[in-house]
């Protein structure tokens, strides 16, 4: 009887009572034992339709309106209705309080799993990882999105849906090139930023626009190299953030259009840390839910049935089919992340001779909790893999690296999971997770606002990989419409 009384829940049905009990039990383990640092949780139960809604608006609870979200919604809905794809069990938002959406169809065991995963795992990662701390403003994001939605709705009323849509189309096309990767500007909180933006807009409306038009344009060729260098320096060229540059210097945009560009740019920047930490973020969340669920079971607070159901789902999510398996769809970030996290724990507690050679500081240190917390806080995928990917994980996943040169008739294996190949595999994997390498690097190199106003871009090629031509032309058309004058893109080796 006493045993039963300790159970947090029984059977598949959930209730808010059980949820709260389970949450509190999880909090004891996550905060008490693992030492996680989390934002206050807000757990929201939503229906399948609402989950589909959330999918379409990139997981955010509020978003401005745009046809592309409608397109994604229709696509997801169709996939879901056809049974081709299930829904995510949860969506979690990097905000303070940290909002997790849980699907109402989940069984109680799943809700427990989902809470451990999202409300503690992801939540801790959002709060402590340095990229999120530096680049995102969880306190202000919801306010900012609300402001964005209202502002864009107001623009639609004032300037017409068509005009706003055209501009957003162009802005969306440039969103991946609308983030600061290397430079870090002082980042005031988003709320301050909106306030400042509003004032700036008023000012801009008063002065800037017509100035550009009334200035006498200089005939070309009479510019000295010195002047050109100075001009580039004042505009801080080369500039990697295309949206920022266009927003600031476009000779044709109206103030509201600049504001719209800034909104999309801020949203892109907000999501940029997530793109850079997918493996770690999921690895952290999976590790936390795995640990918490096993602890609950050890304490006798969930029964065998619940644990089995949880493990079943856990295994489903973490499957990594081999490259020649028909189900293969790339490296599974959940599987890789979880394997690495678990391996860090193993290295700390039961290191082998190999581990001692590879990780002299970590091996056998015993305090795996602190080691993990430190890893979660201070890395991003690329550096995390460089630092922590152990030979053992490479062997377990049987990773191998290959190189595919377009002109060659064959693909070359450059390294496998053996003594000679560990470093090659690790480097290649780290590079493939580095957004600033896998996304094309496009820089604004020059523009003469007083001259021909042609925007010069340069694509810095790596390994001789050019831009996809069709997509390049389409995106350039968008950029041209934003800039208002010709845009030239150069492929540089």
């Amino acid at each position, binding site marked *: 009887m006493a045993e039963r009384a300790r159970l947090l829940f029984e059977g598949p049905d959930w209730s808010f009572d059980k949820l709260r009990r389970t*949450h509190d039990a999880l909090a004891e383990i996550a905060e008490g034992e693992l030492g996680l640092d989390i934002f206050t949780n807000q757990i929201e139960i939503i229906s399948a339709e609402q989950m589909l809604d959330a999918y379409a608006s990139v997981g955010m609870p509020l978003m401005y309106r745009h046809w592309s979200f409608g397109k994604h919604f229709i696509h997801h809905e169709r996939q879901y209705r056809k049974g081709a794809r299930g829904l995510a069990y949860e969506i979690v938002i990097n905000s303070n309080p940290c909002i997790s959406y849980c699907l109402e169809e989940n069984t109680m065991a799943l809700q427990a799993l989902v809470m451990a995963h999202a409300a503690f795992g992801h939540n801790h990662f959002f709060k402590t990882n340095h990229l999120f701390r530096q680049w995102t403003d969880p306190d202000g994001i919801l306010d900012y999105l609300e402001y964005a939605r209202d502002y864009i709705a107001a623009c639609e009323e004032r300037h017409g849906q068509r005009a706003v849509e055209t501009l957003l189309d162009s802005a969306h096309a440039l969103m991946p090139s609308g983030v600061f990767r290397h430079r870090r500007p002082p980042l005031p909180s988003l709320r301050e930023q909106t306030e400042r933006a509003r004032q700036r807009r008023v000012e801009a409306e008063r002065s800037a626009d017509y100035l550009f038009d009334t200035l006498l344009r200089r005939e070309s060729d009479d510019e000295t190299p010195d002047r050109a260098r100075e001009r580039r320096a004042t505009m801080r060229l080369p500039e990697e953030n295309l949206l920022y540059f266009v927003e600031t210097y476009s000779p044709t945009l109206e103030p509201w259009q600049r504001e719209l560009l800034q909104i999309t740019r801020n949203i892109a920047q907000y999501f940029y840390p997530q793109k850079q930490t997918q493996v770690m973020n999921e690895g952290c969340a999976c590790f936390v839910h795995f640990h918490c669920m096993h602890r609950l079971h050890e304490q006798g607070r969930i029964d065998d049935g619940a644990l089995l159901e949880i493990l079943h789902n856990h295994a489903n999510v973490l499957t990594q089919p081999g490259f020649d398996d028909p189900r293969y769809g790339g490296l599974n970030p959940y599987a890789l992340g979880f394997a690495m996290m678990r391996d860090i724990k193993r290295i700390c507690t039961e290191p082998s001779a190999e581990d001692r050679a590879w990780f002299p500081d970590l091996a056998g240190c015993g305090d795996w909790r602190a080691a993990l917390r430190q890893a979660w806080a201070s890395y991003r995928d690329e550096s995390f893999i460089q630092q922590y990917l152990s030979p053992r994980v490479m062997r377990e996943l049987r990773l191998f690296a290959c190189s595919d040169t377009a002109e060659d008739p064959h693909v070359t294996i450059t390294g496998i999971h053996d003594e000679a190949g560990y470093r090659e595999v690790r480097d290649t994997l780290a590079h493939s997770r580095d957004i600033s390498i896998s996304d094309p690097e496009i820089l604004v190199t020059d523009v003469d606002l007083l001259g021909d106003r042609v925007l010069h871009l340069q694509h810095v090629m790596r390994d001789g990989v050019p831009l996809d031509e069709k997509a390049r032309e389409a995106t350039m058309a968008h950029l041209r419409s934003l800039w208002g004058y010709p845009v030239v893109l150069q492929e540089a080796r």
Partner: protein
Amino acid sequence: MTNFVDRRLNPKDKNLGNRRRFLRRVRSHVKKAVDRSVRDSAIADVETGGEVSVPPDSIREPTFHHARNAGTQRHILPGNRDYRAGDTIDKPPAGAGGGGGREGAEDGEGEDDFVFALSRDEFLDVFFEDLELPDLVKRTLRNTETTTPRRAGISVIGSPGNMDLQRTMRNALGRRVAMRRPSDERLDALRARVFELEAMHEPGAEARAELARLQAELDEATRRRKAVPYLDPLDVRYKNFEQVPEPNTNAVMFCLMDVSASMRQREKDLAKRFFILLHMFLQRQYDRVEIVFIRHTHRASEVDEETFFHARETGGTVVSTALAEMRRVITERFPASEWNIYAAQASDGDNYSGDSRTCVAMLDGELMALCQYFAYVEILAEEEAQFINSDKSGTELWRAYRSVAAEWPNFAMKRIARPGDIYPVFRELFARGKAERADG
């Protein structure tokens, strides 16, 4: 403190605005799909919504990204079996479905169309778009059934306007009696007596005792009146109304078609599309729509849909036989007092010489009075349509029917030559008729 929020009751359809914007963007494809659905489905099956297929190019969201098959690309793959460093693997020949299965699917070229389903409402929106129907008509068409409110007992909830005063007051009275709320008279009497006693110049011991007793009684009564209100929310009753579907009357639709040799597959196809549209229109307004197919050569007979559109028959052309058959069916099965009768006739305009006058006589004499609406389309050959451009000239039947049209506002006629003509024909025939009815 952790919050648990139940969002399930929040308004749904957050994405409706986005979906609308998307539909507007792929407008031309939606329109095409709707037109196709109208053309291809059986008469009664049109309008279930229909699938729209959009070529991916028109809704692509481009971004800068690396070319797939150029330069040197490095990959990490899991699940190595027996590769060693330095091994080379021959690439599959170009065009043979790409490298690793997935690459092929992702390749820009072989992409499938973006397919989605239109809801019924969205379908109708597009369908009605050009019809220029007055809003009222649109509303009637959109609703599959109309309802009228009917009294259905009483209820404890409702809007103040529906309050049932009599019942409410009766309940209040009953409660006041049961709870022994002191009445106004009793209170007045007590007050009067207390006042009287207090006014006594020199009250005796008896009077003082009475005063104390009455005073207590008065206090108690006042307290009780406060505790037991005159009208309590518990007493209130509302009249309850139920929405009862209006018993829609039935309609019967007569499809009359000339099936003599001069009517070939093209003419029949055109006729069919015309019938489909009429059927859709009627279905919106009536619970039950019966269709009667009457084909005729020099004899007329009632047949099923399959025979109507596909079987062949030879013979001359006597249009009046079809009208006679229609009248027979009406008399036998569809008394005009119970049925709304609609007729649609399609013909190539040929008729046995002299018969057209009989037709006019039959229509004028009886049929037009029975029919809500009689629509006649004459199907022309494409080359004919080129030079017939006046309504005045035409076949004998056409000229004869013009006199009917002049007489009866519910008779409409039109010439069509191409599938493209049908839509406007339909619009003119019904938009006009319905608009008048809606306004009247």
